């Protein structure tokens, strides 16, 4: 796979942001039109519209799907802005919550629950958001690729003075436990993770017994 440079990534982000904005506009129109239908039906008598009750039950389902879609486009829009600047200030709890939302589908396909335990305080620092996203995503992807079906991935950020860690653990059955973290240099997710962590000036610890990966960083404020 060809590596993308920063300008190319920023370009992808910009187009994605524009299109998600247009999708949001279309969703807003759908919501208003279905709302207008509800208004009109509510004004009709049951005699003139015998299926009134059924329609009034069905129309809110359109509204629910619109809201679901809006949540998705809002989070995608947020993701597309990750590449606006190379470095940015982030709050780690919000950042991880966003990542969990974006990767739910991958976990759901494997019947894996993605769980996030917030730190007991805000963790603000400067980082390269897209690389941090990639590092965390590949930790999750690694566990998903080593489970047959089911289990739980738990992500837990911790602040300790001027350092912070992100602990990613897997509870459940690993397909072949002897292969877990056995050959880091041959596993794509871990290679990408290592590269990203290196660029972020952090470190990664792999623990086979607890089925976990811990990413360690120093907090930078610029």
């Amino acid at each position: 796979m060809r590596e993308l440079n920063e300008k190319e990534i920023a370009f992808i982000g910009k187009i994605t942001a524009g299109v998600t904005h247009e999708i949001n506009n279309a969703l807003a129109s759908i919501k208003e039109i279905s709302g207008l239908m509800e208004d009109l039906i509510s004004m009709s008598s049951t005699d003139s519209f015998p299926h009134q009750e059924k329609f009034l039950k069905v129309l809110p389902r359109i509204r629910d799907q619109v809201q679901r879609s809006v949540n998705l486009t809002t989070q995608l829009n947020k993701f597309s802005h990750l590449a606006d600047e190379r470095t940015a200030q982030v709050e780690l709890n919000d950042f991880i919550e966003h990542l969990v939302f974006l990767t739910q589908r991958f976990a759901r396909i494997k019947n894996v629950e993605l769980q996030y335990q917030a730190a007991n305080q805000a963790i603000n620092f400067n980082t390269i958001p897209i690389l941090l996203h990639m590092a965390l995503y590949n930790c999750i992807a690694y566990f998903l690729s080593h489970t047959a079906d089911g289990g739980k991935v738990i992500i837990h950020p911790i602040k300790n003075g001027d350092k912070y860690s992100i602990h990613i653990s897997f509870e459940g059955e690993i397909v072949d436990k002897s292969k877990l973290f056995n050959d880091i240099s041959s596993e794509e997710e871990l290679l990408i993770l290592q590269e990203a962590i290196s660029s972020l000036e952090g470190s990664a610890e792999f623990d086979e017994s607890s089925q976990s990966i811990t990413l360690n960083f120093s907090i930078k404020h610029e």
Partner: protein
Amino acid sequence: MEKIKILLVDDEKEFVETLSERIRMRDHDSKVALNGEEALKHIDDDLPDVVVLDLKMPGIDGMEVLRRIRKAYPNVQVIMLTGHGSDKDEKEARKLGAFEYLQKPVEIDTLMKKIKKAYKQKFESSMMAATFAEAGEFDTAKDILEADKENVDKKKGKKEK
């Protein structure tokens, strides 16, 4: 219940015309402008009580429209309704005097509550002006009450010449 005069400003025709129809079904007066220039012309000709304004539009954008409304017609309340929504935009809009900043899509009941609240604020400003006038502080009362009327009359006077 008093009829509120509302101007909806958005370049998404389908969205804004449907919303306008729903507002009229709730017994308020609602008109539509599809861009900033149209909105400003409409406000000059027929002053609304509340403007519901999109942020990103072709031509004059929502922030500039807000700036001009707040300068020329400070008693007109403006509610931003946008799908774009960054924290930075919200801060700037509120600094310029937007009454509220909402994200699209919005529940009609939520929007109507905010419109009524904005209208109440406008009404209270008018009451405040009356209080000042009663106390003999006519300049202050005039500043509050006649800001909009003066500007409308000036522009009408210019056109008639």
